[in-house]
């Protein structure tokens, strides 16, 4: 049986899941953070593209849980557990949280990248999910693609080419 390889896309403030031979990808992470939670034995993974640290920042009633670090980690975890992954074996890789613009004005929102990274680490720590690799901070945008077959995360930036973590 031939299998068609698909690249599953994750939009901004969105999350999705993948199993081999498919890979999962999100583009244009600036201050946003891409979170991948995966289980090597069953080769399943989920990816979220979060924009903000805390769901408590939402100013309207309905919360898109994939947009915030705390709720996105919760949802990834629950879905992976429901798919049969063991929580003890879940691992994470994260990328993003850059500071693209250097502003002289002290607008708190312009420092959202580092805050997002902190929030993701806190959320993962609550569930004792270990971060195996990370590529965070700096001032470059990133496009990332995760392969659940190899558990490798490919990171592309404009100036520094491609690297794998």
């Amino acid at each position, binding site marked *: 049986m031939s299998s068609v390889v698909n690249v599953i*896309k994750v*939009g901004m403030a969105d999350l999705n899941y993948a199993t081999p031979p498919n890979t999962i990808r999100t*583009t*244009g992470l600036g*201050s*946003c953070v891409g979170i991948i939670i995966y289980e090597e034995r069953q080769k399943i993974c989920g990816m979220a593209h979060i924009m903000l640290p805390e769901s408590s920042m939402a100013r309207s009633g309905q919360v898109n849980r994939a947009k915030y670090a705390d709720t996105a980690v919760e949802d990834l975890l629950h879905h992976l557990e429901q798919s049969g992954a063991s929580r003890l074996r879940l691992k994470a890789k994260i990328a993003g949280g850059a500071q*693209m613009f250097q*502003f002289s004005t002290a607008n708190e929102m312009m420092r959202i990248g580092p805050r997002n990274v902190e929030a993701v680490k806190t959320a993962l720590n609550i569930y004792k999910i270990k971060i195996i690799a990370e590529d965070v901070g700096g001032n470059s945008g*990133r496009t990332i693609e995760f392969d659940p077959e190899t558990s490798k995360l490919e990171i592309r930036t404009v100036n520094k080419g491609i690297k794998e973590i």
Partner: protein
Amino acid sequence: MSYLERIKPQHLDILKELGNIGAGHAATALSRLLNKAIDMTVPSVQVVPFSEISSYVGGEDAVVAAVMLRIEGDAPGNMFFMLPVTEASRLIQLLTGDSTVDFLSEEVNDMGFSALNEMGNILAGSYLAAFSDFTSLNLQPSPPALAIDMPMAILSYGLLELSMVGEAAIFIDTQINEKDALQTEQTKGHFFLLPDPDSFEIILNSLGVTIDE
């Protein structure tokens, strides 16, 4: 109710007019800087869900140069002047007479960056001045900041305020074009105006339009 549900097509038309006036002034400013004819398209105003923004801004592999300004005052928001990086290099070569300017190269060219920043500042400033005159709102631009990177990574900075309120952004987008030697139109760049959520009502009110009818 979210501001997005309250904004109707007729309101988007008013925002379009705003983009038209603002970018018109900016195109004139650019045309004076370069001593060339610069056109602009009728602006588009679109409500784009966050999850679709990557396809809206297009070209995953595209690299753009963008000058961002934070708008402060009566109707806060963000503004971007964005153009393909090769185009940015070409414009600054024309402007400075230095043909070695290349924003993709590893070597930092301070003069080039500074010129691009200033050009963005002048253009965005003239956009904003026209916007301010038209609405009688008091608006001040922050000092400009420059980035050369993927369009979506850059634009996401303009979406943070909006993202706390809804799941979509209203893009007031105006393209500026230049005719080349063969008279074919080429897109030179975009102005994106992204008002903060609370600013839409303030802008519309300043023009005598109420949102809830």
